[in-house]
């Protein structure tokens, strides 16, 4: 495989997974914090969220395929077999990861933060933003988990992206193609690039967390 194509595939993986992580984080972070404030979301809330961690990516892929297919309810959008379809499916997969990390990171701090807000004469409504600020360290781990889940996923990416060369091929689906062709060396090289990208992004998040 040529270097230019390798670059193209790695970059696509990066922006698809990155966008999916952001899209998922927008609702997942507030949800995680809110559940933490409500004493962990209760048994059912937590069971549902943690079960979401086991969400099989092919099932999510199948769901989005049926939704976005030309004969499906959202077929007219023309999103199937585009990178945006992959972003949507991967966001759904990253959502429970991010929410669960935020929840488990923030839960232990709730009482401490509530006392702090009250002692400074704040209202209950100010607890959530303060909790967000105090949990910002957990946020890096949560985003890294969501991003890692999104970029390393292959089932949904194949079903809704279609692994079209120069259009929806990402690192994981490229590894599948190279393996299928018996080009195991190329497949392995792509695997190392995938690990490198994940490492780089995680390192960046940790640096941001320190700032």
């Amino acid at each position, binding site marked *: 495989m040529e270097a230019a194509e390798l670059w*193209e595939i790695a970059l696509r993986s990066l922006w698809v997974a990155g966008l999916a992580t952001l899209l998922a984080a927008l609702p997942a972070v507030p949800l995680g914090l809110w559940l933490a404030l409500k004493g962990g979301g209760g048994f059912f809330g937590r069971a549902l969220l943690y079960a979401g961690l086991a969400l099989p990516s092919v099932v999510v892929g199948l769901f989005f395929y049926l939704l976005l297919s*030309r004969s499906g309810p959202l077929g007219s959008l023309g999103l199937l*077999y*585009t990178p945006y379809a992959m972003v949507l499916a991967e966001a759904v997969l990253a959502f429970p990861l991010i929410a669960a990390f935020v929840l488990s990171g923030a839960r232990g701090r709730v009482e401490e933060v509530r006392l702090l807000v009250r002692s400074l004469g704040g209202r209950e409504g100010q607890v959530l933003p303060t909790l967000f600020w105090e949990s910002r360290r957990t946020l890096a781990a949560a985003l890294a988990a969501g991003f890692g889940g999104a970029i390393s996923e292959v089932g949904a990416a194949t079903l809704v992206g279609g692994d*079209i060369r120069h*259009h929806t091929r990402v690192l994981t689906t490229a590894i599948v*193609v190279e393996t*299928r*062709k*018996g080009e195991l060396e190329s497949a392995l090289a792509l695997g190392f690039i995938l690990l490198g990208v994940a490492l780089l992004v995680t390192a960046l998040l940790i640096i941001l967390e320190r700032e």
Partner: protein
Amino acid sequence: MGSMRAIFLLAACLSGQALGLRLATTTSVYDSGLLDRVLPAFERATGVRVEVLAVGTGQALRLAERKDVDAVLVHAPELEGEALRRGVLAEPFCLAQNRFLLVGPKGDPARVRGVGGILEALRRIARAQAPFVSRGDRSGTHLKELALWRAAGLTPRGGWYLESGAGMGQTLVLAAEKGAYTLSDLATHLTVGRKRGLVALYAGEDPLLLNPYTYYLVPGGPKAKEAAALRRFLATEEAARLVAGLKVEGQALFQPLRGRCIIPGSGGR
């Protein structure tokens, strides 16, 4: 320079809406490199971009049924005939053919080397209960294999009969690892199977083993005009030359059919 290129590529990715013609084809066609040879000439001549989805024939026909692709290039004559009758596919063009081969380990535990026919070879494998890997994915190769077992009067079952559920290349890799027999198309065997140490054990001139690939339009898709243009291009002498010129170590992988279909019931003209 490098970063400029990266930014350019990123912009190209972001303008992601599909503009091209979508063609579903089989993993055997895709992995052989046939389309990489033929499609660039078409894209240059017409400016139409072709987006290729490499799936099994069964899945390709399902995608056609749901209008998720504009054209297919497949190799399962019976399924194609049925899809034609139901109006899922239209205007077949027989593009190329090659042959299926029975491949297996050098040691040949079931002694099929030099046997008189493919059906006898399969009977020997079943009798010896030698490991055999089936694709098991409703691909053209899988359907052909099932038809051959039926013709041999056998129902393969038992610990020796493995189903990979994977593409041709991966199935060959699996067969090599397990020391098993499998049915393969010529192209994938030459590019993958041989590298993994499998040998062709039966490759006779048996009409049962002919493997024709046919291009069809999917009526009602948004890119019907482009799909028809590709059909016209595949019928040109240039396309036939490109097909015939695809070789691995001097051996041609496909013979162009130029629209002549040799198998009755494949629905061609």
